[in-house]
């Protein structure tokens, strides 16, 4: 299977169920906000977030990447998938928010393998992470494309 870099084509369509519940803490949100140089008060000040109508601190727009990458580990560590993570480059990323993530959320993430196609000497793998809250309601959908580079 040289055209998809040794990745098992049968993983397409596979779903990796959530393995754990991610509890979103205020300090998670504050730390991540500082790390992306965000300064908006709704990430740091609980009172400001509540005055703006939110239950608690609001996560930055790319916060869900923490959950997506944690959940992707199930796929990457699956020996049956055949992905050499040392050759993986992040090609594109999309976040669709069904509602904002706030502190106190208890989230679980399911990984869907949507696409695998040959790209020159390498392969492009598209995964979708569906994030739901404790009530099972959709919170965010992340779509990531990873380029698995060919031999150089």
């Amino acid at each position, binding site marked *: 299977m040289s055209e998809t870099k040794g990745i098992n084509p049968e993983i397409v369509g596979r779903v990796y169920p959530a393995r754990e519940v991610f509890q979103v803490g205020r300090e998670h949100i504050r730390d991540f906000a500082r790390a992306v140089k965000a300064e908006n008060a709704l990430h740091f000040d609980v009172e400001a977030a509540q005055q703006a109508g939110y239950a608690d601190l609001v996560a930055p727009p790319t916060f869900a990447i923490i959950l997506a*990458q944690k959940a992707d580990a199930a796929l990457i560590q699956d020996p049956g998938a055949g992905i050499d993570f040392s050759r993986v480059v992040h090609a594109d990323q999309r976040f669709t928010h069904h509602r904002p993530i706030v502190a106190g959320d208890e989230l679980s993430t399911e990984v869907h393998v949507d696409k695998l196609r040959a790209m020159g000497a390498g392969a492009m793998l598209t995964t979708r992470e569906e994030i739901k809250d404790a009530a099972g309601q959709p919170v965010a959908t992340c779509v990531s494309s990873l380029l698995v580079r060919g031999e150089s």
Partner: protein
Amino acid sequence: MKVQFENLEKGEEIGSRDISVTRADLVRYAGASGDFNPIHWNERFATEVGLPGVIAHGMFTMGAAVQLVTDWVGDPGAIMDYQTRFTKPVPVPDAQGAENPATGGNVISVSGTIGALDEEARTARVDLTVSAPDTEGKEQKVLGKAQALVQL
């Protein structure tokens, strides 16, 4: 000053900013995001896999760039959808002389314009232009099709 949908025009600029990024910023982002890929902190490893040296996490650039939109609209929860392609790496060189490890690094330039308006949904699509100098000092587009959909 709150952004009013009625006052927006397609093609209008929402502003611009420069974001500095140092090795210290990458360590902070690695910790906050859980992405400890050594290409973002280990020069030897980065060079061995064919990179010009340590590079920023694509997700650092994506996460920091959208702050222009968050600060423009004033509410991180208003960003319903955000996507990008990672077109070129952002090299983050170590400090010259190294008297202070928080010096050195690179500068990411971000500017945003209104790319589309949807009157029915009351959404604005902000298109971001994001660039940084490569190792030769030549300014390169580091994100492609960086678009944030904002609910107003």
